[in-house]
């Protein structure tokens, strides 16, 4: 399976995402925002960072990149697409996911190992998790407050499209503790925390067993790889 990771001007976590893809057993493919070519990949990741310096609105200018027309077409045809942090912001700006992300309610950038509950374990990126499982992955953002109208929030909840919820601490004022959501089809997932930073022992969050041994993020990438193998 080949998974494309798109680099935008100001992307930071594209290399970590490619490494996570490799550790999950797939082939990472570096893609460029200015191209119209997805290089025949089977899935896509929009990585974290500060594309265009967060000018205009986070992810707004990147969502107008040349490659985004191909991303939108592919997503609408069912290709798995994961947006992490700035990538999540791009997916909302591109109208592939609902709602929006605003500045953290406390006004500060936050970086912490964050506990999330997997609320929907049937998306392309979460099918390897047990429903309700709690995972710990890093969170780092300044504008991660998820908002949407009450009607949209009710609909997302009613349709099981809240994929992750913050546990113990709501780090950014996200409404209803929402950390990540999916589209109707379950192939497009966006979340603010960073699974690609918790994929390799020695470099992840601390666990009860050992320092930096947390690899809860790996399940995102193995979920989509397994799905690809089943379908192939």
């Amino acid at each position, binding site marked *: 399976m080949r998974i494309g990771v798109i680099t935008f001007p100001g992307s930071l976590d594209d290399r970590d995402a490619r490494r996570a893809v490799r550790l999950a057993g797939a082939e990472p493919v570096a893609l460029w925002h200015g191209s119209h070519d997805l290089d025949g990949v089977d899935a896509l990741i929009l990585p974290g960072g500060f594309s265009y310096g967060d000018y*205009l*609105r986070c992810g707004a200018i990147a969502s*107008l990149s040349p490659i985004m027309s191909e991303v939108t077409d592919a997503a609408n045809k069912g290709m798995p697409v994961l947006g992490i942090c700035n990538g999540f912001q791009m997916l*909302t*700006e591109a109208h592939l996911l609902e709602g*929006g992300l*605003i*500045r953290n309610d406390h006004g500060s950038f936050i970086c912490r190992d964050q506990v999330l509950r997997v609320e929907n374990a049937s998306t392309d990126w979460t099918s390897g998790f047990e429903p309700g499982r709690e995972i710990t992955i890093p969170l780092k953002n300044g504008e991660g407050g998820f*908002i949407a109208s009450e009607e949209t929030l009710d609909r997302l909840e009613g349709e099981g499209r809240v994929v992750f919820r913050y546990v113990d601490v709501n780090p950014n*004022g996200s409404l209803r503790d929402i950390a990540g959501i999916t589209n109707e089809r379950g192939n497009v997932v966006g979340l603010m925390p960073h699974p690609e930073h918790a994929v390799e022992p020695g470099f992840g969050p601390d666990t009860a067993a050992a320092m930096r041994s947390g690899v809860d993020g790996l399940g995102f990438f193995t979920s989509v790889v397994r799905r690809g193998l089943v379908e192939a």
Partner: protein
Amino acid sequence: MPTIVVDVMPKAELLDPQGKAVAGALARTGHTGFTGVRIGKRFELTVDGPVDDELRAGVKQIAEEILSNSVTEDIVGIHYVESNVELAEESLEAAAEHPDEGYVAPAGETH
């Protein structure tokens, strides 16, 4: 040069952490009496040609689809005025003509 000004504000019902921080600074420096501060954005689009209906329709579309995000923001005004740069230049010229009157900031001054 015709200038189109688009004003965008965070939705009224949303917390505006930037405005809240400024309000805190005002209170700390003894500037009491302000019950709130909200921070928005002002876009100045300049064109060479005439401002006609086609251009106005285009500006409305750009304002709604690119300059603002309807989930988080409201467009509170689209108007056609002089730019801040032009206002600032006029102000400097006026100050040069009447050096004794001191500096009077124009309405559009922002710095």
